[in-house]
């Protein structure tokens, strides 16, 4: 059954409309990925308003075609210009740019892009291998367990990606609170509508997502202008690309290990590629025969993070599709995409739409590989995109954001929601709060409430004592209080040892 769904998923992509859109979508993902500081998150956000009404079998792979190559493209500017395309490319520049300064830029680019392509494929293969277990797990999860998973997802996205537990929780709870605006699903009672008919249906998803993610980026773009400034593009970068490609095969075990780390980290809700790259870089340094050379420009320092950040994509797809709890901030937007096209990821997804679920794995593999190939062939031209001035970008992207917010419902009031969300997103970003946690709370708020009342109706308050629910909630409490728990445990341990002496 799994194999059949896997093949059907692949066949879904072999259709004229998908093949026509594959190249433009991949190029779009590459262009946005190369623009420093913007990244795949922004690329997907900009597409969300325009997938409304599209067939899910077309719209969802499209989103993955866009997000998968953006990570690989971001490695180009990280290696050649010392500017990461996105946060998951941050570790690549630790050794990538020093390699460029030593005249080995082509080698670094070849290694980065090959690691990305192969890491993405490894992530997809691992996801396929884990899928049967996921399908079994999904059948065990009933409403109370899925509700607890939503709590875990929101808490983890808020806490694990940032240093401050308090800030992460504030973001998540704020998103949950905003999601309550409108008429309550079970009772029809109007909440926080202030008598406005516009608010009876609640706040629309697209204007909020665009406001929270896209508007603050535009303001940052206006602030920094052209990020590349006067940084010159190195000459002769095409020369040693083949050497870099061979390096990945020479260090195949490092590549596999790093991909495994990326996949594993990606599968845990809330962590994402930004953490996996540093974990992978750290393990590469620890296991290297020459750890002192890391940071001076060695190819292992490029292979490790780039393998991890693309394998992470495959891992993050699993909790998103299986439980409806995103594995990363990027998957939060894919979740938004599911909702826009009318699909609900979660336990029913794998039984009723397994072909679509597998098509996303195929799309991740194809988009990532194609993106890397295009970047390898057109390195110099691709990097020139990073030099486009903010004077061109800001009005164009501003226009797309505003039209996108309007196009969803054709309400001018949605532009007011866009601005309000933009202001909120700016301050959340400014003071270090997790915007992904906010959006996750906003998206999952409806299901959070629905599953809570369903669980209460079916099992009463005793649903909180179900074993899996207890474990998941205990995990959340542990993560929230882990610092205090560890300090307390250390004190107790010292006390016991002191008494024994």
């Amino acid at each position, binding site marked *: 059954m799994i194999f059949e769904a896997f093949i059907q998923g692949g066949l879904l992509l072999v259709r004229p409309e998908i093949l026509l859109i594959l190249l433009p979508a991949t190029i779009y993902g590459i262009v946005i990925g190369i623009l420093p500081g913007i990244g795949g998150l922004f690329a997907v956000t900009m597409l969300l308003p325009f997938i409304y009404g599209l067939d899910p079998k077309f719209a969802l792979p499209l989103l993955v075609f866009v997000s998968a190559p953006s990570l690989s493209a971001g490695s180009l500017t990280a290696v050649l210009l010392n500017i990461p395309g996105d946060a998951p490319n941050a570790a690549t520049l630790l050794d990538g740019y020093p390699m460029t300064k030593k005249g080995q830029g082509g080698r670094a680019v070849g290694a980065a892009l090959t690691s990305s392509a192969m890491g993405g494929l490894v992530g997809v293969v691992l996801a396929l291998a884990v899928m049967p277990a996921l399908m079994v797990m999904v059948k065990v999860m009933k409403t109370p367990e899925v509700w607890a998973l939503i709590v875990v997802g929101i808490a983890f996205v808020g806490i694990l990606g940032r240093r401050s537990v308090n800030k992460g929780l504030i973001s998540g709870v704020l998103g949950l609170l905003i999601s309550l605006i409108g008429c309550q699903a079970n009772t029809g009672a109007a909440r926080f509508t202030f008598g406005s008919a516009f608010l009876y249906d609640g706040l629309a998803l697209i204007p909020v997502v665009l406001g929270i993610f896209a*508007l603050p980026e535009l303001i940052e773009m206006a602030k920094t202008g052209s990020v590349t400034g006067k940084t010159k593009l190195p000459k002769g970068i095409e020369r040693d690309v083949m050497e870099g490609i061979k390096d990945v095969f020479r260090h195949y075990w490092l590549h596999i290990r790093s991909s495994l780390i990326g996949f594993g980290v990606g599968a845990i809700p809330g962590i994402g590629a930004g953490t996996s790259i540093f974990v992978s870089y750290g393990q590469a340094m620890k296991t290297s025969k020459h750890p002192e050379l890391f940071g001076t420009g060695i190819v292992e320092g490029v292979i490790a993070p780039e393998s991890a950040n693309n394998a992470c994509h495959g891992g993050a797809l699993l909790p998103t599709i299986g439980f409806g709890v995103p594995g990363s901030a990027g998957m939060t937007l894919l979740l938004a995409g599911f909702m826009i096209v009318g699909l609900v990821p979660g336990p029913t997804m794998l039984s009723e739409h397994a072909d679509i679920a597998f098509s996303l794995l195929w799309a991740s593999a194809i988009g990532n590989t194609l993106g890397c190939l295009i970047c390898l062939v057109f390195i110099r031209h691709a990097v020139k995109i990073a030099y486009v001035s903010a004077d061109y970008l800001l009005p164009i992207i501003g226009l797309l954001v505003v*039209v996108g917010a309007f196009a969803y419902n054709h309400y001018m009031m949605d*532009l007011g929601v866009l601005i309000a969300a933009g202001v909120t997103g700016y301050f959340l970003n400014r003071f270090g709060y997790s915007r992904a946690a906010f959006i996750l709370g906003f998206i999952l708020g409806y299901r959070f409430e629905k599953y809570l009342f369903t669980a209460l109706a079916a099992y009463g308050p005793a649903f909180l004592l179900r074993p899996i629910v207890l474990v998941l909630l205990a995990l959340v409490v542990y993560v929230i209080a882990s610092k205090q728990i560890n300090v307390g445990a250390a004190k107790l341990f010292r006390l016991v040892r002191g008494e024994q002496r």
Partner: protein
Amino acid sequence: MKGHVYFLLAILLLGIASIYLALQISAFIPTYQFKAQLLPVVFGIVLVILSVVGLVVELKKKAAKETKAPKEVTTIIIAAAWLIGFVVLIFLIGFVLAALLFGGAYFKLHNRGWIGSIAFGLVMGIFTYVVFDLLLGVDLYQGVIYIPFYRFLP
């Protein structure tokens, strides 16, 4: 630090407001009222607690000088003003004309020549109409001020 304190105060007020507004919700059936009020009150209480914790932590920190350069603050305010101004312009004269004016004005006020700015504005306006109205069928808003220009668009 000061800005963050104000932000936390705003969160605190939001939490208190949500509790108050939630308790005003009424429904014909008591259980319905309870269901409608439960989560807004719970989330409001949690927000109040978290924002108070955040405020305590923030106020305990040694008062560090705000290092944000005045020029940076001005740039942010100007960028925000451009975006809000664009939305207001759309409300007044519709998407196509607003895109034309916004694109051209932004270009000109960022030290570009007249010809380039007019050309860029025209490209923005035409792009908006062709891609969104004609190709995607979005049916763009035409503004509260009646402008005969829109009558001539197919």
